[in-house]
C-alpha cells in the first residue's frame, strides 16, 4: 500500500475504489514483497476478504462507517487477533488456542473500519531491539535487507516501510516502537504510559509496556492513534483520562511551544548520523536551547534492571522447565534477570520515581524535548557489537540507550524520520505526560516543511 491510509479511506468512502480491491492489492503486495522483509508471520487473507466485503456492502447500503473504513492494517504478533494463535515471537506460545477475541487495540482499529491483514514479526516476548528472531527468521529492513528492521516491533516497522500496509500496531517497553520507526524511516508513537489499553496483548514488562501505532504520514499516525483511544477496564494500568484526540490539532503549528534539545546522556555514545538527525530537526524548529537530564543514565540503567527482573518473573515457569525452547539471543539474559537481587530492583524503582520528579521539573519550562531515537542507523543482521567513540558496546542491550530513560517514566514520544540522505534514522519528540497533541503539532510542521518525510523504501514502490 503505497497510498496513505487516509487517502485510501477517502477513496473507499467516495466509492472510487472498493475495500475488496484495496484488500486484494494489499494481499498481492504482501505475497510479492513479504519474502524479502519477513514482516508478516501470519496473513489472515480469508478474514480480511470477508471484512472487506462487509465494508463495501455497508457503504452500498448507505451506512456511515468509521474514519478508517477499508484501510488495511496489521498487528505485532503479541496482540490477540481473533482466530490467530498469539505467539509473541515464541515457539512456546504456539501451545495457545487461537484467540477468541481481538486485543483492545485491534478491536478499536476494526471499529474504525480498518481491515486486519495479519500478525507481524517481533523479538521473542519483545525482548530485543533487532527482531533477529531465531524461530521465525529476522525481520529485514526494507531500505537495506542485509540490516535489521529494529525491534522489538520490527515486523511492524518493516511492513509500513515496505508499503505492505499503511498502518501497523506495535508495543514499546524500552524503545520497541521508537527504534523500528527510526531505522525503518517511518513515524511511530509511544503514547503516555496508561493512555492506551494493552488488554489482549502479551505483556513483557507490565510497569513499562505501552502500545502504539506506526505510519508513513503524521495524519495517518494521528488517525490511527485517535482510533485507538478508548476506556477499557480490562487494563488496570489505564489512566482515567479524557480521550483527547489529536487529528484536529495537526494544523495548529508551533505557536506557544517551547522546544529544547537534550544534551548530556543524549549527546554521548551515538554515531554522527544520530546527531545530524537531531541537528536537522532542531534547525527546522529553530531550537537553540540545550538542556540536560542528569539522571538519564541512571534511569536507563534502572529501566534495564526492572526489565530484566520483571521479564524473567513473567517467564519463570517456562524458564524452569524448557529453557532450550527460548530465543537463544535472549534466554540467558532472562535467566540472569531472574537472579537479580530484590534490593537492586527496589533501588531501581526508587531511582525511577526520582527521575520522574526531575523530568517534571524540566517540563515546567519546556513543552517538547528532542533527542536521538537510536545511536546509529540500522545495524547489519548478526552484528553483536556497536563501536562508538572507541568504546565497544553490546549491541542488543545498547540500542535503546536514548529511548529507555524516557519510557522509564512513561513520557509520550513521537519518533520522526530525520535523515537527509542515506539510511533512515529518527529523532524523538518527547512531551510531558498527556501532551501527545503537542508532539503531533510539531511533527506535522516538520513534515510540511519537508524535513521529516517517510517514503516507501526503494524497490518496494
Amino acid at each position, binding site marked *: 500500500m503505497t497510498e496513505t491510509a487516509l487517502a485510501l479511506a477517502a477513496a473507499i468512502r467516495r466509492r472510487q475504489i472498493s475495500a475488496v480491491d484495496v484488500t486484494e492489492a494489499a494481499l498481492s503486495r504482501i505475497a510479492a514483497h513479504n519474502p524479502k522483509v519477513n514482516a508478516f508471520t501470519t496473513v489472515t487473507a480469508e478474514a480480511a476478504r470477508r471484512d472487506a466485503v462487509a465494508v463495501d456492502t455497508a457503504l452500498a447500503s448507505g451506512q456511515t462507517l468509521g474514519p478508517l473504513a477499508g484501510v488495511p492494517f496489521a498487528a505485532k504478533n503479541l496482540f490477540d487477533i481473533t482466530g490467530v494463535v498469539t505467539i509473541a515471537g515464541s515457539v512456546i506460545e504456539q501451545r495457545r488456542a487461537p484467540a477468541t477475541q481481538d486485543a483492545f487495540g485491534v478491536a478499536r482499529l476494526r471499529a474504525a473500519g480498518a481491515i486486519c491483514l495479519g500478525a507481524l514479526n517481533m523479538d521473542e516476548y519483545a525482548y530485543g531491539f533487532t527482531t533477529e528472531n531465531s524461530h521465525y527468521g529476522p525481520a529485514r529492513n526494507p531500505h537495506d535487507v542485509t540490516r535489521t528492521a529494529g525491534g522489538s516491533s520490527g515486523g511492524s516497522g518493516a511492513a509500513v516501510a515496505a508499503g505492505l500496509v499503511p498502518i501497523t500496531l506495535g508495543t514499546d517497553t524500552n524503545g520497541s516502537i521508537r527504534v523500528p520507526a527510526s531505522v525503518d524511516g517511518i513515524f511511530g508513537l509511544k503514547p503516555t504510559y496508561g493512555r492506551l489499553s494493552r488488554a489482549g496483548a502479551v505483556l513483557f514488562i507490565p510497569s513499562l509496556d505501552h502500545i502504539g501505532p506506526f505510519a508513513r504520514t503524521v495524519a495517518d499516525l494521528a488517525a490511527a492513534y485517535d482510533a485507538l483511544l478508548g476506556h477499557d477496564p480490562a487494563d488496570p494500568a489505564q489512566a482515567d483520562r479524557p480521550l483527547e484526540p489529536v487529528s484536529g490539532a495537526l494544523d495548529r503549528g508551533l505557536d506557544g511551544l517551547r522546544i529544547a534539545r537534550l544534551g548530556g546522556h543524549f549527546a554521548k555514545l551515538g554515531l554522527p548520523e544520530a546527531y545530524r538527525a537531531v541537528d536537522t530537526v532542531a534547525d527546522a524548529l529553530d531550537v537553540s536551547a540545550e538542556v540536560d537530564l542528569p539522571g538519564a543514565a541512571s534511569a536507563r540503567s534502572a529501566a534495564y*534492571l526492572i526489565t530484566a527482573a520483571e521479564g524473567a518473573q513473567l517467564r519463570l515457569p517456562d524458564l524452569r522447565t524448557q529453557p532450550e525452547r527460548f530465543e537463544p539471543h535472549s534466554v540467558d539474559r532472562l*535467566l*540472569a534477570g531472574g537472579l537479580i537481587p530484590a534490593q537492586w530492583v527496589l533501588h531501581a524503582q526508587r531511582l525511577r520515581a526520582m527521575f520522574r520528579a526531575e523530568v517534571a521539573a524540566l517540563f515546567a519550562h519546556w513543552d517538547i524535548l528532542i533527542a536521538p531515537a537510536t545511536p546509529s542507523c540500522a545495524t547489519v543482521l548478526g552484528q553483536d557489537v556497536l563501536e562508538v567513540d572507541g568504546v565497544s558496546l553490546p549491541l542488543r542491550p545498547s540500542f535503546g540507550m536514548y529511548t529507555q530513560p524516557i519510557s522509564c517514566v512513561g513520557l509520550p514520544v513521537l519518533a520522526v524520520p530525520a535523515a537527509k540522505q542515506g539510511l533512515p534514522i529518527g529523532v524523538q519528540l518527547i512531551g510531558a505526560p498527556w501532551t501527545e497533541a503537542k508532539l503531533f503539532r510539531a511533527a506535522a510542521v516538520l513534515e510540511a516543511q519537508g524535513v521529516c518525510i517517510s517514503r516507501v523504501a526503494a524497490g518496494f514502490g
Partner: protein
Amino acid sequence: MTHRLTEQGRKMIDYEKIDPLAYVTAAAPLIGLNLSEDRLKEVAEAFALVIRMAKPALDAPVTLDAEPAPVFRA
C-alpha cells in the same frame, strides 16, 4: 523524609568482589532453576552484563521518600 539510603560518592557495591559464576550457581536453585554447567557459565556471562548495565543505577543515590511501588503512573 530525605534520609539517604546511599550516600553520594560511596558506592553501594564493591563490584570487584562479585563472582558471577559463583553467585549464579548459588542463586539459581532459589528460584527453581536447575541449570547445566554449560548453561550456568552462559548465564554467569549474562549476569556480568547485568552488573555492567546496572552500575549507573546502583551507584546513584536514592532517598527513602522516593516511591518504590512497581506500578508506575505518568
